[in-house]
Structures are given as C-alpha cells and as structure tokens.
C-alpha cells in the first residue's frame, strides 16, 4: 500500500481522531450490537393484535408512575439534603472533616448488595414488617435509595464547591452575610449550574433501579390496580424491578418483549424531554410532550399536570403552555396521563427552585437534622456490621445487647477461600478502572478537539446510559461466548466500564472544556503528538477527574453482581459479591450466615475504602477553615 493510499488514514490519526476509535468500537460492541441483536432477534415475537392491550397494561403503567415518583422524590431529597450536608462539611474543622470523609468513603465504597441486607435487617428490627402497608414499603425504598445516594451526592457537591473562589467567600464574610444567605446566593447556584447532566443521569438510574426494591421489599405489597393478566406490580415495584420480575422470567415472549420495548422507549422519551427542558429547546420540548402523551399513566397525576401547565406558562411562555394543554387534552381523552408532569416536577425542583434566600430562617434546621440523621443511621449500620462480624453467633445480635468478642467469622472466611474472591474482585475493579482510563479520557479529548466527534461521543454516552441494562445482558453473553471470551474477567471488566462510560465521558469532557486551550496549542507547536499531549500535558492536570473516573469504574467492577453471575462459571473467578450473596444476601435463604457476611463486608469495604481514601485530600482541598 502506498503512502498516498494511507494518507487519509494517517491524517485521521495524526489529528487525534484516532483516540476516539477504541471508545467507539467498544461502545459499538457493548451497546449498539447487543441492543440491535436483542431487538431483531425478538421483533418476530411481537403479536400486533395483543400489543395495544399489553401496552396499556395497568400494572406496567402503575410501575411507570411509581418509578417516576420514586425517582423524583429520591433525587430531590438526595440533592436537597446532600447539598446542605456538604455545605456543613465544607465549614467543618479539619479533624471533623477527616472523620466524616472516612464515614462517607466507607459507605460509598460499601456495595449495595452488602449495605442493603444490613439496612433491611436493622429497619425490620426497629419498624417491624416493612411491607405491611403500601406507603411503608414505598417509604422504605425511598429512604434506602436516598441513604445510598447521599455519599456520592455529598462528594459531588464538595467537589463543586471547589469552584467557588476563596476571595468571594472572604468578601461575603466581610459583608456580614448569614450562613443561609451564603448558601442560597453562592453555593446553591454553583451546584445548579454544574449538575445538569449529573442530575439527569441520577434520575434515569433511579427510574430503572433494581437493587433497592429487590433487596429491600421484593416489590411488595401488590396493589389492586397493579395486578393485571400480564404483570404484577406492588407499591415498591420500580421499572427496573418490574422488568426483572415480569420480563426476564416471563415465558410468554410477546408479553416480555413488549414490556421491555415499552420501558426502553419510555426511558428514551424521559431522557430527551429532560434534555429539552434543560436546554430550553422548544421544538424538542413539544416532541417530548406529545410523545409523552403516548405513555399513559394513572389518573391521579392530573393535578400535577395542571401545575405543570401553569408553571410552563409562567416560565417558558405560550408555546409550551399550549403543548401541555394538548397533553392534558389527550390525557383526558384516554382517561390517564403521561409521565411529563413528574418529569417537569423533577426539573422544576432541581433547576428552577428559587435561588433567592427565601425562607432562610428555616435553613438552619434542615442541614443539621439531615446531617445528624444520616450520620446516626450510618453509625447504627456500621455498629451492626462490626458487632456481628466480631461476635460468635450467626444471627444478628440486637442493637443494645452484648456478645463476647470473637474472630470466628474471619476464620470461616479464610476456610471458605474468601481471599480468592477478594483477589478476584480486586482484579475486576482494577481491570474496569484501567480500561476506563484507557478508553474514556482519550475519547473525551478527541471529542473536545473535534466538534463532529463531540456529537458522536455524547450520543454514544447517552445511548449507553438510556438503552442498556437487563435487555443487553443476554446478547452480550452470546457475543462473548461466540468470540471465545466467556468465563474470563474481560466481559465483566467491559460491562463495568460501559456502565461508567456515560458519567466518565461527561465528567472528563466538562473538565477539558473548561481548560485553557493555550496549553495544548503550545505542546502542539513543540511537535507533540495528540497521544503525547494527553499523557504528558493534560493527564497531570486532570488528576482529580481521572482519579474519580478510575474509582467510579473500580467500584462498579468491585460491586458488580449480575455480570459476574452471568459471565463467570468457575468458582476460581468468583468475586466477593457472589460469595457474600451466598452467605446472607439472598432474602430467601433458610438460615443466613450473618456473621460471615458482616466479616466479609467489613474486609471488602475496608479494601475499597482504602483505595478511595486519597480522594478526600482533593475534596477538602480549599476548605476555608472558618
């Protein structure tokens, strides 16, 4: 091949576009291919005579409404409480900050399959039957989700606070502003400005949450309106759990496929609508609203629809108000309502919530109350884990009871080869972290350099976020088996990396966008290649986002449960998650080994927490030491 034939190819790589290729190919393999595989291999299952009735299945719509409500409540509570706790922490003295950061990192690093069974156990001990009523059950999953999300939200808010110039804080102090005024005028607007996509990612993740309802309430109790010939929905059945229960184990393929298709389209619609609202693109808003009308919900959302229309009228003008009226009209005709009101509620609370210091006298109470509550509950769980791990008995001792100290459960771990599981988890986490570092930052930088790639990058990241999940797991199993990579760590690494990709891409891209382009220009003039610029010039500056990206991916890999269960068939490769689930994670176990479970949880969390610990150095870097 002559040099002239190779020229376009070489030019492509010399201009740095080549850095985008690995990310693109991996996304193609992990997201696009399995998705189309799933779609085309199942489309023949569609029985068009039955599709309308399955599409209008009340159980599915109830789950949809519950998920949106769950996502709204948990997201708002997490951010409202998390931002305030972060604000308090920001002003804490150094030793308290260190103590709190250890607690935060410990619970951030504790995978849900460990923390939730303990949460469930302690909550059941204190509040008895958690599924005795629909409201109790729904409140349980909301509390569990908020508790799980708070460490990440607090860490996120603390890192956002680094953007506030020290001089501004000093001037505010000299002007005599109160804490509440400082929060509402300086801190909250900074969070709102920085968190747009982060909030949307959270919102979508919570809609399709499987873990919390699965481990806390099993979707129970069933609601009268949620029991249809096609599916069963309880007051804590989120859409993710709905799919797990009603689609994965559903032998009737028409019902299963229609359900999965519905949920996939709904997630896409929710995402596009939120983006349209955030970006204020009216054309897209109209599309979002009208398409939203296709996803009918139950009638109690009419009130919210009214609020939605009124607020849109006031905020966005006549055009959007008309669109909402159209939606309400459609909803009236079909006796039901779309998810739009829920979405708008979330958007309004998160992005348009008054930044003015209204109600400041109430400000002083919530941060302390929420902070104390979070610390108290986390301390109770930590105490339970420690006490059970260091006791002799298998059942969890009561909160205030005394039991003799013993290391017997740690020797059980040793005998069961738990350290092989630990080593495997370490490899899985490290592999996922390294692959993420190798794929995502180069792609984000290539996207930052070339506008055409920016659109591709964002599109791929969003596509991955919205459209992958339980539906792509089985096609991936087939693909990896066919290429001879079944029963290796590689599929688990790649799926963990793929889960991190949307968050990682947007994180690195946002940081790169905010950087001075002069630095890379100078390096280019000096003759550095794009790869050299990335590794030698940008990487040292990007240490914090790269560390966050690595840790996020590492923890995703470390705590993954479903992908090791599906891809690995050899006990020599099993990670900690499978071993601990075997001890006590499974709620149907006849006699769980809580002692071994808590000992394993402690070891596992300690390793992950130690790895995450360097993060606190950056998070509290510029605290003002008031």
């Amino acid at each position: 091949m002559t040099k002239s034939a190779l020229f376009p190819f070489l030019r492509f790589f010399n201009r740095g576009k080549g850095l985008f290729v690995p990310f693109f190919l991996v996304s193609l393999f992990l997201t696009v291919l399995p998705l189309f595989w799933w779609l085309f291999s199942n489309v023949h299952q569609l029985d068009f005579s039955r599709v309308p009735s399955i599409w209008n299945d009340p159980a599915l719509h109830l789950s949809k409404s519950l998920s949106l409500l769950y996502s709204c409540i948990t997201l708002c509570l997490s951010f409202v409480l998390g931002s305030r706790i972060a604000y308090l922490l920001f002003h804490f003295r150094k030793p308290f900050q260190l103590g709190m950061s250890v607690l935060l990192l410990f619970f951030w690093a504790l995978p849900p399959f460990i923390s939730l069974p303990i949460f469930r156990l302690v909550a059941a001990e204190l509040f008895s039957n958690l599924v005795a009523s629909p409201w109790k059950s729904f409140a349980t999953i909301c509390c569990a989700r908020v508790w799980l999300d708070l460490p990440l939200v607090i860490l996120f808010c603390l890192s956002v606070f680094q953007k506030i110039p020290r001089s501004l804080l000093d001037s505010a102090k000299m002007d005599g502003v109160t804490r509440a005024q400082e929060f509402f005028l300086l801190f909250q607007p900074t969070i709102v400005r920085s968190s747009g996509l982060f909030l949307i990612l959270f919102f979508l993740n919570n809609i399709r949450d499987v873990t919390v309802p699965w481990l806390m309430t099993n979707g129970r109790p069933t609601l009268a309106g949620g029991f249809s010939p096609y599916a069963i929905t309880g007051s804590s059945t989120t859409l993710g759990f709905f799919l797990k229960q009603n689609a994965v184990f559903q032998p009737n393929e028409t019902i299963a496929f229609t359900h999965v298709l519905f949920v996939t389209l709904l997630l896409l619609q929710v995402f596009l609508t939120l983006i349209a609202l955030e970006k204020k693109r009216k054309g897209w808003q109209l599309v979002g609203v009208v398409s939203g009308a296709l996803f009918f919900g139950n009638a109690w959302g009419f009130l919210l629809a009214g609020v939605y229309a009124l607020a849109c009228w006031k905020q966005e003008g006549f055009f959007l108000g008309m669109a909402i009226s159209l939606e309400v009209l459609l909803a009236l005709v079909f006796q039901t309502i779309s998810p739009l009101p829920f979405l708008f509620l979330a958007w309004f609370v998160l992005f348009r919530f008054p930044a003015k210091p209204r109600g400041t006298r109430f400000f002083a109470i919530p941060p302390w109350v929420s902070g104390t509550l979070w610390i108290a509950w986390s301390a109770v769980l930590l105490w339970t884990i420690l006490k059970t791990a260091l006791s002799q008995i298998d059942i969890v001792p009561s909160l205030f009871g005394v039991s003799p100290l013993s290391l017997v459960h740690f020797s059980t771990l040793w005998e069961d080869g738990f350290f092989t599981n630990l080593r495997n988890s370490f490899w899985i986490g490290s592999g996922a972290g390294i692959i993420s570092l190798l794929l995502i930052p180069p792609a984000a930088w290539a996207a930052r350099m070339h506008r055409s790639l920016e659109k591709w990058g964002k599109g791929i990241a969003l596509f991955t976020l919205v459209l992958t999940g339980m539906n792509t797991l089985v096609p991936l199993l087939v693909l990896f088996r066919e290429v001879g990579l079944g029963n290796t760590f590689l599929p688990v690494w790649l799926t963990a990396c793929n889960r991190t990709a949307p968050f990682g891409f947007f994180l690195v891209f946002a940081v790169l966008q905010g950087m001075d382009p002069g630095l890379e220009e100078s390096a280019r003039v000096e003759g550095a290649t794009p790869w050299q610029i990335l590794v030698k010039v940008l990487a040292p500056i990007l240490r914090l986002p790269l560390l966050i990206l690595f840790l996020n991916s590492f923890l995703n890999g470390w705590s993954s449960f479903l992908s090791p269960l599906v891809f690995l068939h050899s006990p020599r490769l099993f990670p900690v998650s499978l071993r601990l689930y075997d001890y006590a994670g499974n709620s149907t176990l006849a006699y769980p080994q809580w002692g071994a479970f808590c000992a394993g949880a402690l070891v596992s969390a300690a390793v992950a927490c130690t790895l995450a610990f360097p993060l606190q150095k950056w998070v509290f870097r510029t605290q003002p030491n008031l």
Partner: protein
Amino acid sequence: MKKVVLLFALVCLGTANVLASITVWVSWEGEDWFRQVAGEFSAQTGENVEIVHFPAMEEKLAMTVQAGGPFPDVCLVKTDLFPLLDTLISPIFFDQLSISPSEIQELGTQAFSQEEALMALPLYADVQVLYLNRAVFQQAGIPLPQLEDWDLQTLQNTMEALEAQGTTPLAWGLNSAYIFMGLQDGLGSPLLDPEGNFQVDTPENVVLTKMLLDWFERGWIADYPQRPPLVKAFQEGKVAMMPQGSFLLQTFQKKGLDFALLPFPSPWRTVIDPKAFVVFHPSPNAWKLLDLMERRSHALCAQTIKIPMWKTEKAEEIPYLPFLLASLQNGVLQPQSAQFSNGYWPAIRGALELILYEKQTPEIALSIAQQYIDHQ
C-alpha cells in the same frame, strides 16, 4: 503507560480459564459434600470435576437458557426450574448407570418424568413440617399438641390459646405460594382442573382465603415476609409455631434449639420439594460421576437431614427420617410446569397480598389471579 498496558494484557491472559473436564452446577445445601465426592471421583478416574456453587441458580439458569448456553455437564435442579430446561437435557440412560430404576423412590420418578422417560436423576427431597418452640408453650402454660388428636380444630384451639397469652401463635410469609399450595390442595380445591390447568378461582378457595383472612385479623397468624427474620423470631421465642421446610432441621439441631415437630394437621397437605440432577452433556464419565453421587447420597441426606430419593440400607443414620417419611404420606408434589412456576406462584402471591393488605375481596383477587395464570 507501556508498562500499564503490558501488565493489563498479562492479567487478561492470566484470567483465561482452562475448562474442567466435567462441570457440575449446584446450589442449596451440601456444597462441601459435593466437593468431597467430586474429589473421590477425580482420584478414582483421573478426570477433573469442577463443582460450581451458584448463590442465585434461578437467575443464572434463566439467563443461560435465554443465551443458549454455555451449560454445565450436570446441574442440580428443583422441580420449578425443570420446565425451563426440559428441551435442553438428556433423558437418564440407566444402561450407563450401575443403579436400576427400581431403586428410585416412586416419588422421585413421579416428580421428574416426562412422557414415561425419566429426565432427571432424583437426589433428595425436603417436606414441610410444623416447628413448635417448646419454651414458648411452656411459658404460656399450654401443653404441646399431641399427634393422636392433631387436626385443624386442635390447631385453631392452640392458636386461640396462644394468642390469648399475648404470643404470636403461627407465622410465615403469608403471601407464600409454597405454603398456600398445600393449604389449597387440602382445604381448598385441587391444584389442577380436569383439563390439567391450574385453578385458583374456585368457591372452595374463596372459603379458604376467607379463613386465612379471619385468622390474620384475629392475630392468630402473623406475616414475616422474609424467612431469616421469621427464623430469628422463632429462635428467640417470639413466634410459637411456624410451617417451614425440613431444611431447617439441621440448623436447629446444630444450634441446640429446644423444638418439637408435627406434621401439618390434616387435611392441610405438606408440599414435597425434591431436587435432582439433570444432564446437559451426556458422557461416560458424567454418568459415572452421577452414579457415584447417588451411591454416596445417604451421607448427604444424613448430614443435611433430607429424604433420600434412593432406597438406602443406612436409613437409620438419617435423623428424623421416620417422621419425614410419615409426613410424605400427606404430601403434594410441586408440579413441574411453566404455568406453575411463572403463573400460579406469582399469581397466588399477588392475590394473597391483595386480600390481606389491600382489603380486596377474595372473589375479585382470585379471579384476577386466575386471569394471570391463564395468560401464561
């Protein structure tokens, strides 16, 4: 950076798995026993056997079946997983085994046969029994019910007396189809209608669910949605009686708990839950391994207190076996059909939750449950 890439490539290569000669997937109790027999087999034949214990066998098998593999050579399953696999597994070839069909308990043959071919090699079975905490009865000053006059009326009288003493008389996960199935087959209508379909919407079942609702409202029965808190409450003396599988016997025995056993009061029937090996990839050595496992199974049954599915001369080594065999007489087998696993099971759970917590009338709840089952 080159070093990182190199290290990473080495790890990739390092994790590449060398497949074992025979792979056996197991779940539930007896992991150590399986490894021990596999070790013995390897020593005898030189063939490597990998025992893989999966904590979530249902999820694992469902995903693997959807993906079309990879399947192990042999897998231990229970009856409700059987419909998922019946087209993928090999029938049992007795000419490859040193054991004969006549050595299998009739119950085992019945549970795993399809069109007169045995599709899985039965290993053991659990049955449901009623556990009674002696200390609770003692504290309440109520004599333990005796087997001679043990019937539904005695159960109700006992519950009433215990409730009057402020104790929770009887508890289980009230939405459990695993327990309701035996109640329905004994006190309601038969599980299957004459056409062989699962029936729940019947006048007899309406009466049965009304009775359960009445017990619930009187405080005679309590709901423990998850098994671990129920077992803990029973151990701590907060619950006097609980209907559960015999798989708890070994744990209670190890813990030295002072408990008594009774069969379910007639006509409430006990549900029989057998486990068996299915063969995905038949090979001479896979058959030999199964042969050895079946021959050694009495040790597993003695260790974990199970009913052996093979006629064994060492039955006296298995604790409680006479009691468990007597319970079998009033037993009903878990059916092996997709309509049971994916229809009856979730539908009953939903219907019972509606009746107990949503105050739905049994007539409506059972009618919706029937529609759900019919759509599967």
